[in-house]
């Protein structure tokens, strides 16, 4: 009896494991296939039935770089994501600090209002923003993207940092203040160390959102400031065989963010759920 029960349990674990693996492989398959195709020749990529056994080639990666200067676009993505994240943190941290530790009657409604600006569909303001950017002579510049990304991510950043600051007991900050710590000391030696994880996850999320943003980047840039999202989109209407090259360019565009995502999933969850998930 005892033995069968244990067997039953083992069988259950086995079935669950098999099912979970099956689903996971299925969901991951498109990424795996993209990676695989990127190492094929164009002929192999198009062949029927699909080839699983082939001699991997790096040719696609080299061609891409020659044809469309991958690093130009990658550099734009890096610059825009990093600077916009920095700018966002610079504005969001003070706001969140003030909201979390000097709460007033209006704090909650301000927070909700900020979130509601995220509900504003970008298309609703596409024309005016396009014209404003054009009039400012900022069409196809990184500066325009940086400012816009900061603005669209700001509500989420303030919310996230606010939730993290809320978790720090006020007493600790007050104690530091009693001991005569200046504001700067209070922030650098108490607040920041205690919310390192939270700030890191906010930064990560902002980087991911900027990196993958594909509305403003497609509409406001053409070549000079175009980031990777635009480079990939330019492969949507190519001539001739291009599956393998498309896969290579996609792999290059996504690899940095996927890897960051893998290593930081725990941090990300806390941030993404506004503290609803610990």
């Amino acid at each position, binding site marked *: 009896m005892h033995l069968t029960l244990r067997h039953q349990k083992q069988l259950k674990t086995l079935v669950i494991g098999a099912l979970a693996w099956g*689903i996971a492989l299925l969901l991951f398959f498109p990424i795996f296939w993209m990676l695989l195709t990127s190492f094929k020749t164009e002929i192999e990529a198009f062949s029927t039935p699909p080839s699983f056994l082939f001699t991997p080639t790096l040719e696609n990666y080299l061609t891409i770089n020659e044809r469309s200067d991958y690093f130009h676009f990658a550099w734009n993505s890096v610059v825009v994501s990093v600077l916009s994240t920095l700018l966002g943190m610079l504005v969001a941290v003070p706001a969140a600090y*003030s909201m979390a530790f000097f709460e007033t009657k209006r704090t909650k409604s301000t927070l909700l209002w900020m979130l509601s600006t995220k509900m504003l569909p970008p298309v*609703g303001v596409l024309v005016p923003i396009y014209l404003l950017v054009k009039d400012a002579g900022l069409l196809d510049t990184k500066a325009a993207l940086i400012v816009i990304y900061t603005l669209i991510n700001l509500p989420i950043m303030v919310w996230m940092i606010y939730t993290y600051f809320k978790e720090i007991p006020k007493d600790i900050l007050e104690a530091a203040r009693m001991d005569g710590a200046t504001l700067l000391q209070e922030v650098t030696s108490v607040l920041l160390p205690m919310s390192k994880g939270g700030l890191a996850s906010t930064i990560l999320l902002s980087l991911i959102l900027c990196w993958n943003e594909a509305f403003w980047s497609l509409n406001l840039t053409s070549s000079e400031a175009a980031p990777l999202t635009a480079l990939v989109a330019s492969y949507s209407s190519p001539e001739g065989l291009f599956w393998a090259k498309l896969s290579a360019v996609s792999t290059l565009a996504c690899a940095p963010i996927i890897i960051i995502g893998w290593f930081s999933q*725990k941090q990300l969850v806390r941030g993404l759920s506004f503290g*609803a998930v*610990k």
Partner: protein
Amino acid sequence: MSSHVSNHAKNSTHWMSRLLVMPSVSMLLLWMIIPLAMTLYFSTIQYNLLYPEDNAFVGFENYSYFIEDPGFWPGISNTLILVGSVLLITVVLGTLISVLVNTPFWGQGIVRILLISPFFIMPTVNALVWKNLLLHPVSGVFAHVWRFFGAEPVDWFAQYPLFSIIMIVSWQWLPFAILLLMTALQSLDQEQQEAARLDGAGIWSIFYHLTLPHLARPITVVIMIETIFLLSLFAEIFTTTGGGPGYETTNLAYLIYDQALLQYDVGMASAGGVVAVVLANIAAFFLIRAVGKSLTDHK
């Protein structure tokens, strides 16, 4: 002396706290008001980029044109179908999959990483990989599978365009739901579950009475964030179907883009923008109330 200092400190902190919030609030305020005001203004004038001099006031004409546009009703219904289906698929499957991977098994860590990966793929890559490598009627993986079973390969984006978009968007957002829900499940009280099981509660009753209530808050967050992004879904449509065939995959976002940047009709596009904003606000009203309450009350 000490009371003087604390009073002074109180005043100055009060003042400073406002100063610290100011940049965020004013930036967002400008970001909201200026473009919105411009959109409102443009929506009442005649404004075509091809004839930019002719800017007569036309009242609500742009609105009536926009609403009578053959793309309007498809745009509305496609938007609702898209958001609704993707929400349903991701929340239901997300819940089931996260419950499944919550029990320990061999390779749990790797499985979790595989499951969440699609979330990090950029929308344009998602669209192009699905369109060309997976759903392509000749060389796509799906076509190979169909042929393997002796069936006629399907031209997905031509025959089932909206369904295909829903599928690829769900593929991207399902991992998001899984990521949040499976992490939420880790803090579910195991002993309580065990006790319920010993009391003779079945799997479904445990799921319904313990698991689901525990997931209520994260599910609200999933719904809110996904709605924000799905209402203005653009890149996936732009890179796959371009809104077609006909208006079959045109959502409001794409319709407005089409009018503004492809037909140069700023007036009508702005009227569309105002409509989109109003619709989004209706959705936001309910969502923010539900979510804001659950998020701020808890603390």
